[in-house]
């Protein structure tokens, strides 16, 4: 692991850097969302970092906070075997971020999942559609206000028998 990774990002992108911390040997670096593609490209191409492998993208909903949504990129270097958690916060009224698809093509599917389940839009994504849920689905289920039991559509499915069973 490279504990100075926070400093490297801070020096390279001083206006974007928000903070860095370590928990259970994992380094988390928080950045602002505006230049995420540039930061991603730097992390991938820098010869001493070489984060060439995007493990995962996911999002966390924190209702009540000013930056309600967090988008988290889990990066991995196949070359040096180190990992990084890159984190950025989004406000609810502007929950849009640039797609990192040009940097890591693994983001194609991973961002579609975040869009589907959390409702965060990715600008310049080549094919931003819902991936698990039907196209006409209402809402984004991983948001905290969405009830786990669903909103009661189950009772309105037209293929369920509505007539009384004959005795």
């Amino acid at each position, binding site marked *: 692991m490279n504990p100075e990774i926070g400093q490297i990002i801070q020096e390279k992108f001083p206006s974007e850097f928000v903070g860095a911390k370590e928990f*259970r040997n994992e380094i988390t670096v928080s950045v602002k969302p505006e230049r995420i593609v540039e930061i991603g490209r730097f992390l991938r191409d820098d010869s001493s970092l070489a984060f060439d492998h995007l493990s995962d993208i*996911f999002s966390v909903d924190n209702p009540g906070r000013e930056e309600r949504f967090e988008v988290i990129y*889990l990066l991995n270097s196949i070359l040096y075997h180190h990992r990084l958690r890159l984190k950025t916060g989004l406000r609810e009224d502007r929950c849009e971020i640039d797609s990192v698809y040009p940097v890591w093509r*693994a983001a194609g599917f991973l961002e579609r999942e975040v869009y589907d389940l959390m409702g965060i839009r990715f600008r310049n994504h080549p094919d931003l559609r819902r991936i698990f849920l039907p196209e006409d689905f209402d809402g984004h289920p*991983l948001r905290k206000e969405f009830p786990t039991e669903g909103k009661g559509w189950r009772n309105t499915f037209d293929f369920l028998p509505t007539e009384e069973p004959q005795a």
Partner: protein
Amino acid sequence: MDLNEAPFRENRPPEEDDLPVRRNEELLLNMGPQHPATHGVLRVVLELEGEKIVKATPDLGYLHRGVEKLCEGLTYQQIIPHTDRLDYICSMTNNFAYVRAVEKLLGVSIPERGEYVRTIIAEMQRIVGHLFWLGTQALDIGAMTIFFWTFREREVLLDLFEQICGARLTMNYFRIGGVNGDLTPDVIGKLRDFLKTFPSKIDEYDTLLMNNRIWISRTKDIAVISAEDAVNFGLTGPTLRGSGVYYDIRKVEPYAAYAKVEWEVPLGRNGDTYDRYWVRMQEMIQSVRIISQCLDRLPDGPVLTDVPQVVAPPKEKVMQDMQSLIHHFIIFTEGFRPPAGEVYCATEAPKGELGFSIVSDGGPKPYRLKIRSPSYVHLGAFDHMARGYMIADIVTIFGSYDIVMGECDR
């Protein structure tokens, strides 16, 4: 009568409209969701030019059950059986990956015997997973015999699993802090017998496939992906190693007892389906090596750690000891409270990197749990890998990922 009718035309020089035109439109073909070779319910929309694939668009979600949302309402221990149902071919590895993530969050360590037992079980599961893959991949391509042969050996291991934990498919065997029960001498004896005969069985499979002309023509140079693309698409596991990239979490971030035994990481060269097949066959041989060494060195001691705040005490103690009764009651009514924080823990599952991200707010339930399933990420590269190949190769490419939709859709 219309003067433009056919009889009059024969005396005129042919116009452009009259010439027979070769149709040159693309054909849109729907495959699935109920297709026997999609290993679950996956639909693919294929754009074809003749028999060639121009574009392949996977349509997922037919098996989406919202496991991540469900987990937000369950305590950490209640989630273990839900992980069984992700990749239902290899439920032991899913349990393992999940409990490792929770243990990392809690910061608990496992007794040495527990680590060895976990390694043995995980490698048995890898053999089961690879046998299942080999049988179904060969069946998809058209070789039926091998399916019966691999399921014969898989049966032996599933019987052992049944003896160890009472279940054959959804095992629910791992516990936070160890495993549910110890290996009995009977199980160890049967496992040793299996390990003695299994390498010769692998040779038997090879006699059917390795030099089989049909197998080679169906897998060689099919779905080639370069090492650079494979890394960029986030592929992991045998699919990545088939392209010659050295990345095995058991080696680069050793866990359990993998650092204490000797074994190698087989690497492919061309990144085609045949190399991925070869890598998986070699991995089974390596798994046999790992299990044999673990059995030889199996230390004595408990298989479950002794952290009363996290691990439920044994039932006998609960009935006699007040302290144990209190811990038991709290664990099963409230659950334990790990520290607030975020962890990501990756485990080498038979299909690739299976990772669990847990965001904890200090409460007894995870605030957010994300499952990084290898099948889902692999399917992201499907369009790239399928373009330019024939329609008959589609099932080969699915099979080559070792895809399971339960894990993909979650």
